[in-house]
């Protein structure tokens, strides 16, 4: 019983990072109605830039984090310009294929620039571990939860209580109406990409710092986690992305503990498949908007 609760606690910390990744995907999909499958790799570029900056100038976590943001932003802007803005409105498939092509570019670019299986990334500041009632909360996990929580609150304020957030929601709801209402759709789309990159960069820094190292496999890994969390929670819903991320984290932790790594994969993918077949609207129960059809 204690294991169950401990795993849940551990899982929520990991899930918080997944939730951020899922939110990044959701922001882009919600506003552009297209899937940016190069999202994970763009964050990967960021964390590698962070690692490099740290290696060059001993910049520490803060320096690495700043560099991560910059790297993720540049990579995202690159993808947005080439795969999304440049491709005409109804060609969602082309955008997806193009973002995949850029993923290949980014992954090889990073692998060339950083030969070697892993690269060091500065660790999280050492917070004391917390122990109460036989439950153990690692200092790293506390850090992740705290930072993720702050980001989520800030994001909520931005999306629901700011003018830009209103423009984003308008664009996500009905692009034609938004255009008519004087929303500069191209600018909002671009800025949404940047916002997604920022949120993703936070996730990237947290994960990389918690691990102390990164590898070029990060691109695929982050993409899969983000997509799975987004779909479990419900495509197009930010609440769903959060819920999906947490559920994924907890399920993974439980499965890993009781059944091992191989079984964990089977359970996660099996869960995802069943979820999609039985609950296409996801756990958050968002109605499958017509948006999904356009892809």
């Amino acid at each position, binding site marked *: 019983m204690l294991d169950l609760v401990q795993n849940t606690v551990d899982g929520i910390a990991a899930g918080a990072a997944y939730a951020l990744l899922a939110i990044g995907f959701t922001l882009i999909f919600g506003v552009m109605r297209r899937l940016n499958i190069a999202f994970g790799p763009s964050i990967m570029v960021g964390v590698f830039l962070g690692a490099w900056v740290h290696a060059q100038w001993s910049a520490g976590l803060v320096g690495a984090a700043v560099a991560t943001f910059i790297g993720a932003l540049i990579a995202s802007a690159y993808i947005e310009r080439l795969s999304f803005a*440049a491709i005409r409105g109804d060609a969602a498939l082309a955008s997806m294929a193009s973002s995949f092509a850029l993923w290949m570019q980014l992954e090889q670019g990073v692998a060339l620039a950083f030969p070697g299986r892993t690269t060091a990334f500065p660790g999280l500041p050492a917070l004391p571990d917390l122990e109460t009632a036989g439950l153990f909360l690692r200092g790293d996990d506390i850090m992740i939860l705290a930072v993720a929580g702050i980001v989520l609150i800030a994001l909520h304020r931005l999306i629901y209580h700011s003018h830009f957030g209103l423009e984003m929601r308008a664009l996500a709801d009905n692009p034609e109406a938004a255009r008519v209402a004087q929303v500069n759709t191209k600018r909002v789309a671009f800025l949404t990409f940047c916002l997604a990159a920022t949120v993703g960069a936070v996730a990237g820094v947290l994960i990389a710092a918690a691990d102390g190292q990164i590898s070029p496999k990060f691109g695929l890994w982050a993409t899969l986690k983000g997509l799975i969390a987004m779909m479990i929670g419900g*495509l197009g819903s930010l609440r769903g992305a959060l819920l999906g991320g947490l559920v994924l984290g907890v399920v993974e932790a439980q499965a890993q503990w009781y059944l091992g790594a191989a079984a964990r994969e089977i359970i996660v*993918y099996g869960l995802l498949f069943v979820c999609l077949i039985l609950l296409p609207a996801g756990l958050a129960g968002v109605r499958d908007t017509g948006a999904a059809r356009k892809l």
Partner: protein
Amino acid sequence: MDPFLISVLSNIGLFSFLALSAWLLLIGGEISFGQQAYFAFGAYGGGIATAVWGWPFPLALLWGAGLGAGVGALVAWPAARLSGVHYAIATLAFAELTRASLNVFRYQRDVDGYLTGPDGANGFGDIRWVYETGIAPGTYLALIAGLLFAVITAIALASRFNLLAQLRMVGEDPILAGMQGLRVLRWKVGAAAAAGAIAGLGGGLYAHLATYVEPAQFSVMTGVHAVAYGLIGGLGTALGPILGVLIDIGLLESLRALAAYRMIVFGGLVALILILRPRGILDESLVAKVRAWARR
């Protein structure tokens, strides 16, 4: 023929099965990131058939294709309600489920004193058929080419009998297609079965050429590549996905000096092509123009 060239052409041929499989679903209106699962079923199924059960090779290939078709249809039936991203991720989930399951799938039997069969993550080796028959690489390439040609011919026949056009209608607008009297669910499941069979056939051929397969080979990246080939080469014709494979692997070989930068070059090329031709190089409008010109 130069053995290296034979090897490259064999690769192109095998990947073409996978690309055609994904393409067929694309024109039926569904993006599948998971055709590699049926490729795996074909590889493992066909490999087990010859190496462990001692079946004749043609039967093993048929078995692999049949497995691909059966599983493909089975997956498509509940998934047919989904569309767009949902369908894509569902197929990805199933493919990863397959891969993760193969990592723990052990089925080994004593064959002529050797323990033969899949051994989970350690892979499945000793698919010895090519050694036992002593078939030359050039001959095997001819076999691959012949079967690929047969598949393309079958698709061309389907086109001749208006079957492909009906699938395209279902793909473009299922509701409108339903209004014309098409049975949308049947088409979706049928297309998935056919696509699964094509992938399974390719998988069987692959396993016997490589003589060793392991779960890691049937990854998400392989699957997304398969879809990308059709999107790049063009959705207008079955030659489109094959063109996509040619461009990727052909580029790899012709840029030997820049081999390290191949993905960077390929990726950039693809992104540019898609800006100009969002439905690929051999897209529907080009094919329509060619058909109109040929009719003259």
